[in-house]
C-alpha cells in the first residue's frame, strides 16, 4: 500500500519547509520532495520603490545573510548609476562580504549542524541542539559562538549594526573605516584562525566517524556554478561565472554575470514556493546545478591565502580521480575552508593601507535603466536585477537566491537519503531516520530559516498516511 511521510516543519534551517516521502507498496521510497511553504514576495513589493532604498529593503530578505543582499543590491545600483566605485569602497565591501561568510558559515557549522555530528544523529532530540552541544563540549561551543560574534562585529563596525547593517549604497559605502576600528578587528584574527583550524580537525574526525553514512548524503554528480577571479581563483565579490560538470570539466568560463538570464532559466513546481533554477543548455531538470561552498571550492583553481589553499588541495583529494568532491556532505568541509579563507583574507585587506581611505562614495544620477548585481553569498551566487524608470523608481525586480539554485539538488539529496535510511515496510519511522533526511538539507544550509533550536524543542510532526488517508503512524517531536 503506497504511503506518504511528511516532515513538517523541517528544523534547524532558516525558514519554513516540509519534506514529503512517498513510499510504494513494499515500503520503498518512490519519491521525496523538499517543499518550501513560505512566500515572501520581495520581487513584487519592491516595485515602485526607489533604487537607493533597495540595499536596505532587500537585506530584510534574511536575518542571517542580509549583508549579501545589501551588497548585491548596491552592485545592481552601481550598474544603474553607471559608476565605478572608489577603491576603498570596493575593499570595504569585500570585507563586508567576507565577514558575512564568516558569521553565516560559523552559524551553520557550529550552531546548526555540529549537534548532529558531536551528539549523534540518533541522540536525544531534546538535547541535539546548541545547548546540548554546550553540555557536551563547552569550549567547542564557546569558540563557535565567538567566531560568529567576530564576523558580526566586523559587520557592525562597517555598517552600524550586526543584522541589517547599512554599509553599502549604490556608488560605494557610506562611511570610511577608522584606523582604530581596523586595529580592533585585526586583534581578533588570531583567535578566529585558531578556532577555524580546530573546527577543521573536528570535522576530519567526523568524516571518519560517519564514514558509512556519508556516501548516502547527496552523493551525485551535478553541474557546479560559482564566481572565479580572472585567473581562476576563489572569488566572492566580483569576477565571472564558471560552470563545471561533475567530472571537473569546465563547460563555460568567465561568463558575465550581467547576462545570467541567458544561461539560467527558472522552472516552477506546483508543490513549492521556491523556484527551480537550471542551466539552460541542459534544460530542466537536467540542468541541475549546485552553488555555494561545495561548488566554489570545487571549481576554483586556487585560493589566494596559504592555509585555505592547503586545505583546498586536501579537499580536492576527496574527489578521487576526477578531483571533484561531489558529495553534499562535504559542503561542511568547504564551508570551513571558506571560513579559513575569510579570516586570512580579512587580515590581508586590513593590512592594506588604502582600507582606511576616506573617499568611499561616488555619486551619479540614473544613467542606465537596468542593472544586475552579483556576489557570492554564503550559500552561493546571488543575483539581483533591477529595471528602473528615468527617475530611479523600480519597475521590475528579479532576485535569484542561492538556496533556490540548490533546489533541484536538495530534492535529490532528500530522496537519496530517504531511500537509504527509511524503511517503510515496517510501518514505523524513527526520529533518527528523519533527522538524517533533515541533515541532508542542512548540508546546503538553506536560507529559509530561523534557528528553532533556541526554544529547546523540535516542532516536527511526521505522519504516515495510507492511500485512503488512514493514519498509519505518527511521530511528534
Amino acid at each position, binding site marked *: 500500500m503506497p504511503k506518504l511521510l511528511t516532515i513538517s516543519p523541517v528544523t534547524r534551517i532558516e525558514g519554513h519547509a516540509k519534506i514529503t516521502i512517498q513510499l510504494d507498496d513494499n515500503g520503498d521510497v518512490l519519491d521525496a520532495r523538499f517543499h518550501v511553504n513560505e512566500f515572501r514576495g520581495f520581487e513584487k513589493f519592491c516595485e515602485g520603490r*526607489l533604487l537607493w532604498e533597495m540595499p536596505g529593503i532587500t537585506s*530584510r530578505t534574511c536575518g542571517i545573510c542580509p549583508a549579501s543582499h545589501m551588497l548585491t543590491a548596491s552592485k545592481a545600483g552601481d550598474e544603474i548609476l553607471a559608476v565605478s566605485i572608489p577603491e576603498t569602497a570596493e575593499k570595504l565591501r569585500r570585507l563586508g562580504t567576507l565577514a558575512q561568510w564568516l558569521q553565516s558559515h560559523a552559524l551553520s557549522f557550529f550552531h546548526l549542524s555540529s549537534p548532529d555530528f558531536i551528539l549523534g544523529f540518533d541522540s536525544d532530540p531534546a538535547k541535539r541542539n546548541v545547548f546540548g552541544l554546550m553540555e557536551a563540549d563547552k569550549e567547542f561551543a564557546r569558540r563557535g559562538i565567538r567566531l560568529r560574534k567576530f564576523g558580526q562585529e566586523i559587520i557592525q563596525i562597517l555598517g552600524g549594526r550586526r543584522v541589517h547593517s*547599512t554599509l553599502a549604497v549604490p556608488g560605494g559605502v557610506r562611511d570610511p573605516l577608522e584606523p582604530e576600528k581596523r586595529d580592533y578587528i585585526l586583534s581578533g584574527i588570531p583567535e578566529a584562525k585558531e578556532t577555524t583550524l580546530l573546527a577543521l580537525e573536528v570535522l576530519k574526525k567526523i568524516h571518519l566517524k560517519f564514514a558509512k553514512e556519508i556516501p548516502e548524503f547527496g552523493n551525485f554528480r551535478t553541474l557546479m556554478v560559482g564566481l572565479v577571479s580572472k585567473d581562476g581563483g576563489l572569488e566572492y565579490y566580483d569576477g565571472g561565472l564558471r560552470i563545471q560538470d561533475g567530472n571537473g570539466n569546465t563547460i563555460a568560463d568567465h561568463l558575465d554575470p550581467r547576462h545570467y538570464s541567458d544561461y539560467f532559466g527558472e522552472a516552477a513546481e506546483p508543490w513549492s514556493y521556491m523556484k527551480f533554477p537550471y542551466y539552460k543548455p541542459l534544460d530542466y531538470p537536467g540542468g541541475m546545478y549546485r552553488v555555494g561552498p561545495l561548488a566554489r571550492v570545487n571549481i576554483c583553481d586556487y585560493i589566494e591565502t596559504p592555509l585555505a589553499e592547503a586545505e583546498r588541495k586536501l579537499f580536492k583529494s576527496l574527489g578521487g580521480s576526477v578531483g571533484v568532491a561531489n558529495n553534499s556532505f562535504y559542503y561542511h568541509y568547504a564551508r570551513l575552508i571558506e571560513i579559513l579563507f575569510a579570516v586570512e583574507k580579512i587580515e590581508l585587506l586590513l593590512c592594506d593601507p588604502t582600507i582606511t581611505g576616506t573617499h568611499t562614495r561616488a*555619486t551619479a544620477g540614473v544613467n542606465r535603466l537596468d542593472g544586475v548585481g552579483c556576489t557570492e553569498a554564503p550559500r552561493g551566487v546571488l543575483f539581483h536585477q533591477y529595471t528602473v524608470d528615468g*527617475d530611479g523608481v523600480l519597475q521590475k525586480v528579479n532576485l535569484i537566491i542561492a538556496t533556490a539554485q540548490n533546489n533541484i539538488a536538495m530534492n535529490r539529496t532528500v530522496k537519496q537519503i530517504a531511500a537509504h535510511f527509511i524503511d517503510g515496510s515496517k510501518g514505523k519511522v524513527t526520529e533518527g531516520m528523519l533527522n538524517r533526511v533533515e541533515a541532508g538539507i542542512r548540508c546546503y544550509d538553506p536560507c529559509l530559516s530561523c534557528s528553532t533550536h533556541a526554544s529547546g524543542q523540535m516542532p516536527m510532526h511526521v505522519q504516515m498516511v495510507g492511500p485512503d488517508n488512514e493514519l498509519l503512524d505518527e511521530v511528534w517531536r
Partner: protein
Amino acid sequence: MPNITLTLDGEQYSADANDTILTIAREHGVNIPTLCHLDGLSPIGACRLCLVEIEGSPKLQPACTTVPAEGMVIHTNTEKLQRYRRMIVEMMISEGNHHCAVCVVNSSCELQDLASEVGLTHVRFPYLFPGKSLDASHKSYAIDRNRCVLCNRCVRVCHEVEGAHVWDIAGRGLGCTIISGMNQPWGESEACTSCGKCVRVCPTGALIERGVGVSEMHKGEDFLKYIVTARNKKEWVAKGE
C-alpha cells in the same frame, strides 16, 4: 500688552492675552505633544495631538490655536488626553504605510519620536495598506505619499515662507493626498524653486532627498526660525537700502 491669569495643570501663570495655550505652556516648561505645529508656520490645529481639557468646556481644544480667556483652568496631560493622543498616532500609523525599518529617516523621524512619547507599544486597528504613490520626478527630491501624515507643514512652508505655493491637499477623508502644482509630477511644477524647505520641515520620510538610503536622512527645521525671525525683524537688508 494685556495679561491674563490661567491655571495649567494646577499651577497658576500670568501670560500674554494674545498667546496660544501651546506658547504659554512651552514658555513655562509644560510639554504638550505636537506634530503639525512648527514655530514659524501658521498654526492650523490639524493633527489634534495638542488637544487639552478646559474646565467648563465640553469639547477638547487644540492648544496650538486656542487663545485662553482670563481664569481658564487647563489640563494638558490627563489620562483621557493620553489615551486620545495614543489613538491619534495609532490611526496615523495604521492608515499609512510606515515601514520604519526600511525608511530613510528611521531613527530621526518625528512620528517615531511621537509614538514613543505617547507610549504607543502596538497598533490595535487593522492596517489599511493603502496604495499610495511615490513621485521621484524632481531632480533633487522625492515625495513618498506612503509615509505622509498630512500635517500640512510642506504646504505652509512653501506658501508662507518660500512664497511658491507648490503644494496643496486634494481629496477628502482617507482620500486626502498632497499634490504638487496642478496635480502634476513635482518635477513638472514650474512654481517649485527647489529650495528644499518642504523636505526639511516634513516630520516623516514622506519628503526626502534623492539618493539617500535607509536611516541616512537627518532633517532639521531649525533654519525656519532664523528665516522667519530675520524676516520679521527686517534683519536681512541688502546693502544700500
